[in-house]
């Protein structure tokens, strides 16, 4: 049965699959008012995952003219998050989900197999007898800001599927998949030997479907915000599995007290405060399996106490009829997100441009790392886009800023995840499939946007 399903899924991938929403251009699904077609459920969810081949020596993603991209570090192991520090050090979170979700239905192993295709092997599979992928934070030192790494050192090791990090004063907070940890950390330090304190437990557990826990600190450093993704596509693991999930948590780092800050956010990542404000932004991965053009992933400001629809509805009051019992009371108060990024792009990274070395049009705008689609036959995402901001709000259409993660042969070299701006104003990109950290700088010889 499993094999039959896997084979027919594979055949449909090859055949290009049915595609009744194909006429929509992904660009029509960007911005504040995306085109939303009627949901369609095929016999087999459209699946398209590129074969992973990695980057050849000297091969890089492509950037607009006037910009330069180079690899800062290669041979990493699933780098997900990059976190530049004021002294030029860059923290790179390397981690991977371990274990697998319990099998509820015959579909589950089939789905897992398809997902695994898109991740390839990637990086050190196991190091020594204590098998398992590295779960650590690597420090890259670029003291003179030329983009060349002089020192590479393991800052913290043996974490548990880490993703988000935040440095507040002399403390490093790490969001493992099941807890927020605190380490004492002084700028310049290249290894931390002190054991961590557990600030608060996060929902991990046996299923842990969306395992990446994004993390950021409020501008004054008094609160932490953690993104906790849902345990399912649309609550098909039952409502009990979603307790305090699909939410952004607000955590008091001193006491470990937390509250759900906002909910109905299926898989929120890239938590970041808009520079100079107290407004929290996130990029969210929306639901799958109702067509290649549903539901667009989005970037949104997060209102305290806000409910953004998942699982009952999307983009405000568009009810998802797969979810029972329905909750018209919650649907009524669902907030439509600010800015759609188009469907299935899998936005995982968000950084506002706080530097000054890029042309003026970039200031205050957003870079979004789009890991790339699986639930449509025509790939979408697999790039870093830029969205201009005016008055603290996104304007216009996204611009493809870093592309070429999928080569002309249709095979994946890498997939972008976290993005960040370093002290020189260069854009740093974590590429978890290409096992590389990229740095994009402006060479100044092209006209500004």
């Amino acid at each position, binding site marked *: 049965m499993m094999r039959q399903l896997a084979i027919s899924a594979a055949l449909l991938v090859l055949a290009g699959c049915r595609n009744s929403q194909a006429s929509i251009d992904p660009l029509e699904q960007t911005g504040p008012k995306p085109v939303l077609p009627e949901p369609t*459920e095929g016999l*087999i969810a459209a699946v398209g995952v590129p074969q992973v081949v990695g980057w050849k020596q000297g091969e890089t993603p492509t950037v607009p003219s006037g910009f330069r991209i180079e690899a800062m570090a290669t041979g990493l192991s699933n780098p997900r998050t990059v976190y530049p520090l004021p002294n030029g050090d860059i923290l790179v979170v390397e981690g991977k989900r371990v274990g697998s979700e319990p099998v509820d*239905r*015959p579909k589950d192993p089939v789905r897992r197999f398809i997902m695994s295709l898109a991740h390839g092997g990637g990086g050190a599979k196991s190091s020594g007898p204590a098998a398992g992928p590295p779960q650590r934070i690597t420090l890259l030192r670029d003291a003179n800001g030329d983009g060349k790494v002089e020192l590479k050192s393991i800052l913290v090791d043996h974490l548990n599927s880490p993703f988000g990090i935040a440095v507040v004063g002399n403390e490093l907070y790490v969001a493992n998949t099941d807890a927020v940890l605190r380490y004492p950390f002084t700028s310049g330090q290249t290894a931390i030997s002190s054991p961590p304190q557990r600030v608060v437990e996060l929902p991990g557990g046996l299923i842990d479907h969306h395992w990446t826990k994004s993390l950021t600190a409020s501008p004054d450093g008094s609160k932490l915000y953690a993104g906790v993704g849902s345990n399912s596509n649309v609550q*098909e693991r039952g409502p009990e599995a979603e307790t305090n999930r699909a939410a952004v948590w607000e955590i008091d780092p001193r006491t470990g007290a937390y509250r759900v800050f906002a909910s109905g956010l299926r898989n929120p990542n890239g938590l970041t405060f808009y520079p100079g404000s107290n407004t929290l932004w996130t990029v969210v991965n929306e639901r799958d*399996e109702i067509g290649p053009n549903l539901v667009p992933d989005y970037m949104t400001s997060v209102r305290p106490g806000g409910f953004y629809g998942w699982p009952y509805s999307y983009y405000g009051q568009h009810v998802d*009829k797969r*979810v*029972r*019992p329905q909750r018209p009371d919650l649907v009524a108060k669902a907030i439509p997100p600010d800015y759609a990024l188009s469907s299935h792009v899998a936005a995982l990274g968000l950084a506002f441009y706080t530097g000054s070395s890029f042309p003026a049009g970039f200031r205050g705008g957003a870079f979004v790392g789009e890991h790339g689609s699986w639930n449509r036959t025509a790939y979408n995402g697999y790039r870093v886009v830029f969205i201009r901001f005016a008055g603290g709000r996104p304007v216009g259409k996204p611009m493809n800023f870093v592309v070429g993660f999928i080569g002309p042969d249709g095979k994946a070299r890498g997939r972008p995840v976290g993005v960040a701006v370093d002290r020189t104003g260069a854009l740093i990109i974590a590429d978890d499939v290409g096992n590389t950290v990229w740095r994009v700088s402006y060479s100044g010889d092209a006209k500004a946007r």
Partner: protein
Amino acid sequence: MARRTIPPISIVRHPIYNMLLPVPVVCFIAALLTDWTYLASNGNRQWVNFSTWLLAAGLVFGAVSILVLMVDLIRGVAANRGLGWATFLLLLAAWIVEFINSLVHARDGWTAVAGAGLVLSIVGALLIAIAGWLSRDALELVP
């Protein structure tokens, strides 16, 4: 009934078709019941999970029983060839319907059952029930 000369595919002289066929009959009919219960419970997901495993088990055993029956029929085992092939076609039709049904049941949530899923479960259960009822005569059994 006429005496048969060619024995069906057997284990220790007991035809295995008769052992295999009840599995899809029971599973496909049971899947209809668990589908019904899922809808009646307003989406208690354990029932749709039962349905998906019942369909999976019915499809695996159904596929083997169809193959065994086909080989037996080609070898000329059936006392009544017409009835034998009619049973075969009903089984095949039930299997195809339930295969499509298993894809529908793989959807996440309510639409795995409500609508096409329930209709296919009814059709598949009817087809397999008729096939099971006919099959007593499809292969004449050694008493």
